[in-house]
């Protein structure tokens, strides 16, 4: 079952891999865990939006028994890359459990890579010498393996969560990884339509760093500058996709720069100057400063994304809304989807349906009385 030839990544040396996609996210706002049944049905219903060259899931709350340990999901193209990556892992971490992720052989998914998972924590003696917190320590190692070890990719590195992804339709991927055996309180699902063939396993979504995951539908004209800005901040983009850039942008802004989530949306999809100019002075200065300082992280071009981290799911589109996104609420559930039909399929009678305008963020947060925030609709009339 281990792959031989074709799974290696990026054949054509394109600037980046283009893709169009379907997104579906579902969160239980009280934190109750649920199975793959509903999210899988929803994402599979948007089959037209994918082409079988990428599908994936980020599931939160799946490893309650190891919730204080980092759960690494690793994708290895061959045994050699596994050996080399494990050398780094064994040196820098205390590994409490290392096991193969159970997968099902299938002729639908030829040549799959090797999938392995590790539950681990930073090696106490080493982290002490580096004067960094454990998150930063982990990010450094993930980067080191993804950049430095050929054919080895840590595809998820958060606690009590995991990413499962590969080449295939989402239902094939779910089947391959036995996802019907996992439960989580939040599922972010993705189906992909890359324009170059063959897609590759590492290019599938969601992308993850620590507990931040991003699933994305779009094509960023600003990719070149986004990437160069992030590289200046020490990130190295290895997956050639817009989505990776988005994941790193969230890591930089939310974790390292501690920018409030609401404002991150306004960095990725900022208001027009015309709107900023008509704001009250304090707000105007703040939004002007955001565009001045973080202009290189503006995501220009069509995109809709679902971003998730523990306890929070966020949906956002570009400021012109060139890609679709709809949200629905039913009881304790928040759904965010590329298409309303997918939500209606599993929850026909919604309490509320929200169709955000361009640049407007949908945030679902667990265990808070106002768990759902919808910023006021911004009207834009331009000739």
């Amino acid at each position, binding site marked *: 079952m281990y792959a031989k030839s074709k799974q290696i990544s990026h054949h054509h040396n394109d600037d980046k891999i283009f893709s169009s996609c379907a997104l579906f996210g579902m969160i239980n706002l009280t934190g109750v865990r649920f199975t793959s049944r509903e999210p899988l049905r929803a994402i599979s219903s948007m089959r037209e939006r994918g082409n079988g060259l990428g599908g994936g899931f980020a599931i939160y709350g799946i490893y309650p028994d190891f919730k204080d340990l980092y759960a690494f999901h690793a994708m290895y193209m061959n045994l050699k890359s596994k050996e080399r990556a494990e050398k780094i892992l064994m040196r820098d971490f205390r590994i409490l459990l290392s096991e193969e992720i159970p997968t099902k052989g299938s002729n639908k998914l030829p040549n799959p890579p090797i999938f392995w998972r590790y539950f681990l924590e930073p090696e106490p003696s080493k982290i002490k010498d580096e004067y960094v917190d454990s998150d930063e320590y982990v990010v450094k190692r993930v980067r080191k393996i993804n950049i430095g070890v050929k054919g080895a990719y840590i595809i998820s590195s958060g606690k009590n969560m995991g990413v499962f992804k590969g080449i295939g339709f989402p239902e094939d991927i779910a089947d391959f990884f036995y996802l019907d055996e996992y439960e989580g309180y939040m599922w972010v699902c993705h189906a992909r339509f890359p324009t170059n063939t063959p897609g590759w396993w590492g290019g599938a979504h969601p992308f993850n760093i620590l507990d931040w995951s991003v699933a994305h539908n779009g094509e960023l*004209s600003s990719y070149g500058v986004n990437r160069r*800005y992030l590289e200046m901040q020490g990130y190295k983009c290895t997956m050639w996709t817009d989505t990776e850039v988005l994941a790193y942008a969230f890591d930089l802004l939310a974790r390292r720069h501690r920018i409030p989530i609401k404002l991150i949306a306004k960095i990725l999809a900022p208001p027009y100057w015309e709107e900023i100019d008509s704001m009250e002075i304090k707000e105007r200065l703040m939004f002007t400063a955001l565009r001045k300082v973080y202009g290189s992280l503006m995501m220009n071009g069509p995109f809709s994304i679902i971003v998730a981290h523990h306890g929070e799911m966020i949906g956002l589109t570009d400021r012109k809304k060139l890609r679709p996104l709809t949200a629905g609420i039913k009881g304790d559930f928040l759904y965010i989807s590329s298409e309303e039909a997918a939500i209606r399929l599993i929850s026909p009678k919604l309490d509320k349906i929200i169709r955000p305008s361009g640049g407007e963020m949908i945030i679902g947060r667990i265990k808070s009385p106002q768990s759902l925030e919808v910023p006021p609709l911004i009207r834009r009339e331009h000739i």
Partner: protein
Amino acid sequence: MRTYLLPEYIVERDDLKCTRCKICIEQCTYGVHYYNAAKNIIESRSERCVNCLRCVLFCPVNAITVRRNLNAYRENYHWTYEFIASIKRQAELGSALLSGMGCDRPYLTFWDKLLLNACQVTNPPIDPIREPIEIRTYLGRKPKILEFKTGDGDIELETKIAPDLCAETPILFAAMSYGAVNLNVHEALARAAVECGTYFNCGEGGLHPNLYKYSEHIIVQVASGRFGVDLKYLNAGAAIEIKIGQGAKPGIGGHLPGEKVSKDIAAVRMIPAGTDALSPAPHHDIYSIEDLRQLIYALKEATEYTKPVAVKIAAVHNSAAIASGIARAGADIIVLDGVRGATGAAPKIIRDNVGIPIELAIASVDQRLREEGIRNEVSLIASGGIRNSADVVKAIALGADAVYIGTAALIAMGCTLCQRCYTGKCSWGIATTDPEISKRLNPEDAYKRVVNLVRAWNIEIKEMLGAMGMDSIESLRGNREQLRGVGLTDRELKILGVKMAGE
């Protein structure tokens, strides 16, 4: 000494059309045309003609043609007309040759080897007529990170942003000093800057009192001669630019001859009338980078930290390291002036042989500042030979924040690139301080032409951005993925950080 120089141009007149109105005689400042009363015809001394086309365009009956002299030296691939003529001229004069405007040698223009991208299928191009496309550009120092205070649902910005410039277009007007050009040119550019929401750099010759009213759109320059610099001047500008060097003459000072230093110019420059205005090659208080830091902070102190300070250098071999030093010395804006950058007067040999192309300088400076993690803290203005809006877009994609245009603005006013600025006889009334000739440049008319040019380029920039699928210029800045090279070597592509077309 008898001259062995061939006339470069031949002036021909259709005598059947000529009405003897003598307008050509009045218009020519080089004394080409004269009236022969005995024959009742107008004749020409072709050897004086510089091909400025003033007479051609002002002849009411289109009777005049200026063409290249077909009598040429026995030139060949190696000994071209220009080299032979220069030797003959120097053999007669015994001096360094002067020239005006920018380097005209056939070094590779990289703009012409770079092509832009456009959206097809996977993302939609944006139509600037229907959707807003933003080209506002802020120039100045930015913090690495913004900090916020959050409390009871309110978010407040805690970081203070240093004073900066806000231009409604990425196009600014380059420094041209009062003395090199006249007050009408300054007034036209200042008014155009106000109308376009951009900035006009007044150059090193001080700022005329009549122009202080436009000072919110003026960048004042401090050069090695310190002409016209006092506290009032420094405080007048929206920003201060320290001029270390100029693309047309890196490493060379300036020399405004005493004949040009009229009473007015003398007063503005704060020197006695009729004396030569000499700008030394170095600033004599800047012999190294730590001295530059002192001047930057002296200017900031003097203006109480209310204005950004820019430092302008000519693009030379190690610009990347120099620019990094300038950023660390406290400059808020770095200006790079490439080998094509123009001048009112420079030794021709310097103009044509010193410096490097601006395209390569932008690419290497932007890359170096990124490698050092400080690119976002300073702004970068590219200058020197920007010819159209595509050059502007390519400069920004390579890594500039904005560009200065000088030559292009003068061409809009009437300049025909005859390169005789140093004679002070500019027949178009631009590079002259002669009060009579200066009247030819009507600031009202000239300012409209410059405004029209910027407006036209703004439209084109938005078209190009929209085609690339971007609705804001900050997504273009340093976005080299949007560029592809044609006909460049691997090494050139590597320095530009650009892929080959087809890749």
